[in-house]
């Protein structure tokens, strides 16, 4: 049962042949495939990582841009508000000045009108008094006395006596 003969050599040879064939047929393709797959997985993971980083960067950029835009919008609104207020103030001031100016000119006009009326009245009074006086005293008073009298009368007149003429 236990006899060693040339079969031992044949078996070693058989085994070597088997290993060579298996290596060529089965082992190498599988090992290559495993390597290929692990490479692929590694590449995919690397790529995913890179993509994720890029996405994060983009998001960050968008956030910054958004904040920037917000800031700019706020600045524009502020500026518009300020301009509007300035314009409003300017308009109010302008109107106030206009009113003031109109008031002043109106007063001046009133004053000049009153002066003119007063002057006119004064001359009419002179004429009327002279006429009345002439008729009353006729030729008793000479011209010199007459002028003196008139002037005295006029000098006693003043603006305040005609306040209701205003």
């Amino acid at each position, binding site marked *: 049962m236990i006899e060693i003969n040339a079969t031992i050599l*044949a078996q070693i040879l058989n085994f070597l042949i088997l290993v060579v064939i298996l290596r060529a047929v089965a082992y*190498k393709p599988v090992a290559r495939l495993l390597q290929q797959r692990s490479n692929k997985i590694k590449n995919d993971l690397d790529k995913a990582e890179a993509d994720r980083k890029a996405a994060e960067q983009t998001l960050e950029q968008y956030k910054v841009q958004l904040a920037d835009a917000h800031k700019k919008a706020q600045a524009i609104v502020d500026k518009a508000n300020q301009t509007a207020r300035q314009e409003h103030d300017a308009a109010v001031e302008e109107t106030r000045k206009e009113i003031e100016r109109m008031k002043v000119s109106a007063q001046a006009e009133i004053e000049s009108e009153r002066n003119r009326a007063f002057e006119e009245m004064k001359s009419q009074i002179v004429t009327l008094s002279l006429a009345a006086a002439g008729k009353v005293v006729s030729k008793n008073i000479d011209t010199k006395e007459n002028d003196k009298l008139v002037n005295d009368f006029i000098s006693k007149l003043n603006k305040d006596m005609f306040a209701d003429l205003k």
Partner: protein
Amino acid sequence: MHEIGVRETVNFLGLTFNIETLKMTWLAMGIVILVACLATRNLKVVPQGWQLFVEMIIEWLHSQIDAMMGRRGRMLAPLIVGLFMFLLASNLIGLVPLMASPTNDLNTTLGLALFVVFLVHCLGLYFKRGHYIAHFFQPTPVFVVINMIEEIAKPITLAFRLFGNILAGEILIIVLLKLMPIWMPIPSVAWLAFSIFISCVQAVIFTMLSMAYLANAVKEDHAE
């Protein structure tokens, strides 16, 4: 095997061969190659079906090899895969009626064991040179005797363990079939099931021990 212990022999070129063992060996080789071809015929990057199974075996062996042998071990991977598949097929083939395991012949197991040990010494000398010879004389030169016995024991234990297990399994099946009437198949079926288990275990043991021996020769020493 009709008569236990008697082997058919042929003479070829003045050498004697056990023809049944050789036939069965070729059959086992054929099965292994066929399975390997079928399993790797249509490889895809995304695995499916048989490919998963084959990949699982190779991945497991790779992890074992990496753990035991280190960087240089990878070049021995096809040898170890082949050894395991051949032993598994050989052991299981004997359980089929009218067939015998190639591993029930000491010529096969001793041949494989001697080949493995021969390979261990060759690789050891190639990778470690002086260190490899020196380690037989450690820790003291007296130990060379013990180391030599160990080295001689390696192929013998490796060969006889497998041979004994498989031959005993086959003998017991024949004995059980002769012992029991044909309507009482339970003992032989139970033994057959146990033999399947033994076949797998012995294939694993032989492969693992070969790996361990090879690892000694191949892995990088930290002292180097």
